[in-house]
């Protein structure tokens, strides 16, 4: 039986040769994302700012502009309505009301009266402004600690140079994902942090597999120059890198297309994140190594000269 070969086994792609192009691409992604973050900020949801979200299923297809007018007439501040899934499903977002609990309840009651009878309230979230920001801040803190711990492990198991390159690639991924959340209408909330985590975790995994091969080849091929060695290692692991990325993406695509609206919005940033993570492992983390003198390599070089 013929088997599927995503990548022929003896590729000799000169990754190091076009590293300037890929560095440029990475720089554009990073600068663009940073620019987006600085100018537009993150699209914090109700989770962060405080307010409430109603997810409703109307009895009939509603006329959204009309509904928007009627809800805006309630004087409960800015009301955002969007269709979500089917035409009958709406998400209504309202900013936090001045005053205490009762003020929030009143606003929800007003909306319920306006929407009328026969509405299925599928979800009602009310969040105080403090809670969400705390969640996100604590989440980001946990992520930062986790990444730091992983990098320490890399520095111990490999050389510090590897950890530096991993940091740079990982930083690139995180900025890129954050940029994604700033440039596209994805809401930044706690689920978004999990998306960042998955991306970062995947990317570091990918990077380690490649680094591991470089470490092995350093002692195996003492006559190769560092760029040649990195190239060889990248080509040797390319098949695995693509295969694992493919299986992961297959699972994510299943989530995206069949997982329902909530899971679907959650998986899209991860899909992009996996692509970015694979790119940064191959085109950023590994080639960057050539700029740092690896000590073991240096010693091997000395012997051969």
């Amino acid at each position, binding site marked *: *039986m013929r*088997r*599927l070969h*995503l990548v022929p*086994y003896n590729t000799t792609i000169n990754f190091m040769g076009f590293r300037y192009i890929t560095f440029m691409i990475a720089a554009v992604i990073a600068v663009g994302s940073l620019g987006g973050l600085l100018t537009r900020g993150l699209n914090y949801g109700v989770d962060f700012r405080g307010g409430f979200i109603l997810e409703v299923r109307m009895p009939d297809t509603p006329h959204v502009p009309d509904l928007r007018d009627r809800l805006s007439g309630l004087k409960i501040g800015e009301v955002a309505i969007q269709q979500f899934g089917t035409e009958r499903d709406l998400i209504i977002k309202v900013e936090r009301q001045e005053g205490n609990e009762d003020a929030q309840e009143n606003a929800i009651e007003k909306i319920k009266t306006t929407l009328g009878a026969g509405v299925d309230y*599928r*979800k*009602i*979230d*009310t*969040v*105080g402004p403090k*809670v969400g920001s705390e*969640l996100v801040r*604590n*989440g980001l*803190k*946990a992520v930062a*600690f*986790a*990444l730091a*711990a*992983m990098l320490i492990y890399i520095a111990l198991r490999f050389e510090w140079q590897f950890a530096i390159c991993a940091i740079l690639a990982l930083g690139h991924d995180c900025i890129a994902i954050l940029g994604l959340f700033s440039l596209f209408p994805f809401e930044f909330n*706690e*689920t978004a942090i*999990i998306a960042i*985590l*998955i991306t970062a*975790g*995947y990317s*570091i*995994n990918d990077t*380690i*597999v490649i680094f*591991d*091969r470089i470490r092995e080849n350093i002692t195996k091929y003492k006559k190769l120059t560092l760029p040649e060695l990195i190239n060889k290692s990248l080509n*040797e*692991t390319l*098949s*695995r890198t693509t*295969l*694992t990325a*493919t*299986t*992961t*993406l*297959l*699972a994510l*695509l*299943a*989530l995206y*297309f*069949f*997982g*329902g609206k*909530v*899971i679907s919005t*959650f*998986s899209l940033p*991860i899909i992009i994140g996996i692509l970015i993570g694979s790119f940064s492992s191959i085109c950023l983390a590994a080639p960057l190594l050539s700029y740092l003198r690896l000590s073991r390599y240096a010693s091997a070089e000395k012997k051969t000269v």
Partner: protein
Amino acid sequence: MLVIPRWKLWMILGICGLGIVFAAPNLLSPTRLEKMPGWLQNTINLGLELRGGSHLQLEVDLKTVAKEYLTNLLDETRASLRKQQIGYTGLLVDTKANGIPSLTFVLRNPDDADKATQALKSIDNGLAITIQDAKVTAVMNQQTLDQRNQSIIDQSIEVVRRRVDESGTKEPIIQRQGTDRIIVQLPGLDDPAEVKKLIGRTAKMTFRLVDSSVPPIMVSVGSPMPYTPAPLGSEYLEETRHDGQVRYLAVKKQVMVSGEALIDAQATFSHTGQPAVSLKFNSSGARKFADMSAQNIKKQFAIILDDKIISAPVFQDIIHDGNGQISGSFNVKEANDLALLLRAGALPAPLKVIEERTVGPSLGADSIRDGQVATVIAFILVSVFMFLCYSTFGVFADIALIFNLILLFAGLSLLQATLTLPGIAGIALTIGMAVDANVLIYERIKEEIRAGIRPLAAIEAGYRRAMTTIIDSNLTTLIGAVVLFEFGTGPIRGFAVTLALGILISLFTALSLTRLIITLWAKRQKLLTLPL
């Protein structure tokens, strides 16, 4: 070379078998599940967003309590300073300075500093006192504050639990979060207004003396109290009497006994046969209540719940043993209501609902169905892909994948983990990433074969060489997961558990299970080439 010891074989098969056994309860209906032995009843809990229900996050207002604590010291401070002839002005409880409540006053004579410190220390040893330019500032020291806060939170949780139980909600989850939060999860509830009212009723109970120097003010129902300044140290509070009449009584601000001291309240009958409510205090409360009644015999006191007087009886006797009885002009129902009100208990601190999430049952059901469909499709896609890439070896990886999922479900069930929406996504994602270890091994085996090594030796070498990579990459992720669990909260923690479990299981399936299958398979074949 390719030898797997017998004990190892049985261990691998045993783990897989246990996985099936512990994952199976998830497939049973609730009624069937009840008939199973206890150790087989562990299933994965569905998170609120999946089963429908309400999630409330409450904030315990610790600052108010600290302020109140100091306010209660004011009278004693006043008396003590006067007794020791220490001149002072402006004695008050200040909350403005950097948000920490403090008791402050200014000494007329700065030389009295030491005496003032002594006086305050003798009132309350838990005070931290600073004196600057004759201004004395006393705050609760950190240790006292921490201890008190801890007990306040514990007690609040207890009261909330009692109230939620009272509302009849099934399987509520009530737990502490952070330093001053309580999480309440109410499965199956799609309108939490009732429970919120019950919990949020900032029922704070105090026993205070009625200021008899001024008469009560009667008002007709619905009209506000005419402006009347209360005597110093007192305030007017509303009392709705049994007959519906509303009056305002001047009540001393000083709390004689706080509601926490009340252990029990029951409707009963007095010795004259009238409906009454019996009160039972804890030991320190009993002592205070005895003092209070001894000094104020035949005087009126007030039981205050949420700034409203719920009862204003008169001390008929000295109450020695902490067992008091309120009797008077009420019928049996009113006595019952009052007892319930007293019993449902005082919250030691005001609670505020700062987050509320309610998911209706229809959305939860949709999410579960979509999640299942997506997981199955992900599994099929990955399985087919693996088969296309590695044929027979791909099938081995797929068998490992099936056990991966089974063991994941078994592990989550044993931990009684809560499955959330990102959790479902996590499981589907595990499917994609679990094959990674196998991919690494297979790619290595292929490399060995290309290098001209014989099939069996290639398998052996493939496993050996992929080992460091697999260990390094998985250990890194595992370290990340542990740190996330340690520092994360809520969904992030849940994600960390799924991630860690997924890693350990995929290590087992790739390094043990597929290896076993391949070994058993290879022994029966005359391997000239590998179907890879």
